């Protein structure tokens, strides 16, 4: 409260003062106009794209119009499932396949990554034992693991999920390590002074102090999960958005490729917003730069 008032209230008794504030610091008085403004450019781009395709300003075989993409998406979602139309009516199944792969891989990465990361950041013994392994394996790009994982697991779920879990693990473990390391010394001392046993410091102080970093790691991790699910489905497993996208490429169905891109974008956005929502709830105490 005090910080917020210092910026907006106390410094702006008169209307004239308010104008001098940078736009981003002004209180949001625009309401619906503000929301309208935010949709202006995306809508304009879509209209421009549709118009130039409809007016044949370029060859739509290379870049189909938004309406064509929508038609393809509709067919993909609600079309008849037949033996020949490989994509028609498979959308929900593929979304389920991709999402569950990401979620299982991400869950494994979150549990192991948070636990190990906090322990590496807090405990010297765990750091000496595990940190070198993490740091030595981390420079190997996840895509470089695909042939190896496919060889070990075959074209099966195991390959997909283990790669996603591993890719999501690195940002989680690194952020949690940093989070635990930056626990203020005086908070640990205060807890010991108030009667917390040294064994419980990890749960009582280090874990909550690291929460902002943990959530940063989780958000990065789930993002990498969506990246990898597409790659893995193109190369190592059957079914899923990535699989549909790769098949569409082989059949030269650019409309379907765009529909798949759009689908994966929406899914990624939804999971990220969900995590952000949870973190805002849990981190109300953390002002960061937002409230300053």
């Amino acid at each position, binding site marked *: *409260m005090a*910080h917020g008032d210092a910026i907006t209230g106390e410094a702006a008794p008169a209307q004239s003062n308010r104008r001098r504030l940078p736009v981003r610091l002004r209180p949001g008085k625009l309401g619906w106009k503000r929301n309208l403004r935010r949709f202006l450019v995306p809508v304009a781009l879509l209209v421009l794209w549709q118009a130039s395709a409809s007016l044949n300003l370029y060859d739509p075989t290379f870049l189909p119009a938004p309406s064509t993409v929508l038609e393809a998406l509709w067919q993909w979602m609600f079309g008849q499932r037949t033996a020949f139309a490989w994509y028609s009516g498979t959308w929900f199944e593929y979304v389920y396949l991709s999402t569950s792969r990401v979620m299982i891989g991400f869950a494994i990465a979150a549990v192991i990554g948070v636990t190990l990361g906090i322990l590496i950041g807090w405990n010297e013994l765990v750091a000496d034992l595990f940190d070198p392994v993490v740091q030595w394996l981390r420079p190997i790009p996840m895509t470089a693991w695909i042939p190896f994982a496919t060889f070990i697991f075959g074209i099966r779920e195991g390959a997909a999920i283990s790669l996603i879990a591993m890719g999501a693990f690195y940002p989680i473990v690194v952020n949690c390590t940093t989070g635990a390391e930056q626990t203020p010394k005086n*908070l640990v001392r205060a807890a*010991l002074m108030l009667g917390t046993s040294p064994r419980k410091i990890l749960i009582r102080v280090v874990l909550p102090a690291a929460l902002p970093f943990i959530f940063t790691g989780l958000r990065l991790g789930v993002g990498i999960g969506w990246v990898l699910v597409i790659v893995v489905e193109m190369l190592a497993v059957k079914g899923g958005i990535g699989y549909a996208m790769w098949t569409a490429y082989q059949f030269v169905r650019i409309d379907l490729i765009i529909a798949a891109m759009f689908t994966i974008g929406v899914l990624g956005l939804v999971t990220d917003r969900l995590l952000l929502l949870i973190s805002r709830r849990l981190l109300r105490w953390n002002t960061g730069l937002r409230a300053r």
Partner: protein
Amino acid sequence: MEHRAQGALERTNAGRIECRAVRKSYQDAAEGTEVVALDGLDLHIEPREFLTLLGPSGCGKSTLLNIIAGFEKPDGGAVFLDGRPITRPGPDRGVVFQDYALFPWLNVQQNIEYGLREKGLATAEIKETTRRFVSMVGLTGFERRYPHELSGGMRQRVALSRVLAINSQILLMDEPFAAVDAQTRVILQEELQRIWMQTQKTVVFVTHSVDEAIYLSDRVTVMTARPGTVKAIVPIDLPHPRDATSDSFNQYRREITQLIATESRKVFAPASVVTESDVTAPLP
């Protein structure tokens, strides 16, 4: 009224701190030399006494407080609390930090409850005790605020009531009012004095301010420049509340300022003037 309930505890003679030949040195990472912060310091602190540690910057005041708190171990000598050596921090010695050290993820209420929960008290007792100390430091109505939503003075009140709530006989305060503005500082000093007189705790108070030391303490301990030992102990024989503009206050001010100035000059003296007795030679 609050102190009545604790009366039985207060009349005991608990809360005597004895520092015997305390020595502490650090490794200076940049220079690679050993810096002696405390060298053979002896100090006895009586139960229910308000004792101030005063001295030039870097004289080891905070180091001594950290050793009494159990945060740091001395290299030589020992500190005893009621005859038992201090080995680690615990709720028998409440600490108030300069940077407050409130848990930012807990609100005011939860911060004050923290130590009571660690004691394993019943919920009803936790709520009642918390309410009592929230009102004692004038925070009623702010229970649901988070630390970042409070001013420095209010944060320090939370920190103070957090250690008052666990009812430790010893209160260790490391420049607690250094980071708050001058007006708030005066109010907090008055409040601390009132609370100390009510609760009869042993207080060890580190400060830079001569006035603060004279205003609050039974005895002012002036420390030497590094390596820190006790240079002089000045008992302040003035009735409470003290008038900082009175002649007798001024006499104490002159005396103590003089003592400190001698030590501060050693710290800021040009290298050529510093003699062997001022600086300990680095050990091999």
